[in-house]
């Protein structure tokens, strides 16, 4: 019997567990087609919706018509998960490189020593872009760490972007134009 490891909604690993256990969790709403799964023996994480053994339960396969020969079902091409260089599934100590980059931008956005309001906007925008990049890549590679760091950077960047907007708005409405 194949066994599977899945990532729960709490971002923790569950398994290895049996096929029936995964099916039971799908029925109970604890896993869905986007739940990350790694079949035992595989190095690659994929989504439950990409595995044919769960397709019918998840409502992905077309309904069977009795009396007619089954239509050829196009096999869904499994998504290839490209890992960033130097990253391996099963190396849980590896942190996503973009998480650190986003924290640097977020700190830049918060402190902004260069004296121009644009600096806030640029650093905050780059902080948002890179922290979302990190969070997105961590979703693709559940082994990676750094989600907490990326979330903190995201919050800091959004906060300073809102400050930037408020500053522009306030000054624009106060000062006369030439």
């Amino acid at each position, binding site marked *: 019997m194949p066994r599977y490891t899945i990532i729960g909604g709490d971002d923790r690993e569950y398994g290895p567990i049996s096929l029936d256990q995964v099916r039971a969790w799908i029925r109970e709403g604890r896993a869905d087609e*986007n*739940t990350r799964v790694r079949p035992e023996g595989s190095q690659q994480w994929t989504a439950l919706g*990409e595995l044919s053994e769960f397709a019918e339960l998840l409502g992905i396969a077309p309904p069977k018509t009795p009396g007619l020969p089954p239509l050829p079902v196009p096999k869904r091409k499994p*998504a290839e998960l490209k890992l960033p260089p130097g990253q391996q599934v099963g190396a849980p100590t590896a942190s996503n490189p973009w998480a650190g980059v986003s924290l640097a931008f977020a700190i830049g956005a918060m402190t902004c020593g260069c004296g121009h309001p*644009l600096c806030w906007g*640029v650093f905050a925008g780059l902080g948002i872009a890179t922290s*979302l990049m990190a969070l997105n890549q961590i979703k693709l590679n559940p082994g990676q760490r750094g989600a907490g760091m990326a979330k903190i950077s995201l919050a800091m960047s959004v906060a300073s972007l809102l400050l930037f907007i408020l500053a522009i708005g306030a000054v624009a409405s106060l*000062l006369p*134009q030439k």
Partner: protein
Amino acid sequence: MNPAPPVLKPSPWRRWAWVLVVLPAGLTVWLLGANDPVKTEIYPPCSFHKATGLLCPGCGGLRSTHHLANGRLGQAFQNHPGFVLALPFLLPLVSVWIWHRVRNDEETLRTRMIYDRALKMALILFFVPALLRNLPGPFQNFAPPPVAKVAPSK
């Protein structure tokens, strides 16, 4: 026996996350579109540029946004080519993301991989011209035109 993972339920906040993007972006474009940053004495001179003579990756961004908001693509490109080049990758990405949030969908793996590539492409296109314009020679074409001192109206 393994403990069971929690029942999946979408966060009620996630659905409205797009407001946090659309509202500030819309407000910025509106304010910058209405006020020419060259003519408006809102912004202090950039002390980084004054101290080092270098153009930081954001230099020209406000002017570029102002021209873009008024539909002048050429002038927007002149002031910050990287910003304008990144937009064809950023805008579809943001639109797809808003679409997923409004419909309360979770992205598929494939969509997330496309997000990843689009973001990387946008960052490269933003930074390469933005950094190269500090080099002499033909790279100077990427630099924003110098701001002419606006004569005091008197």
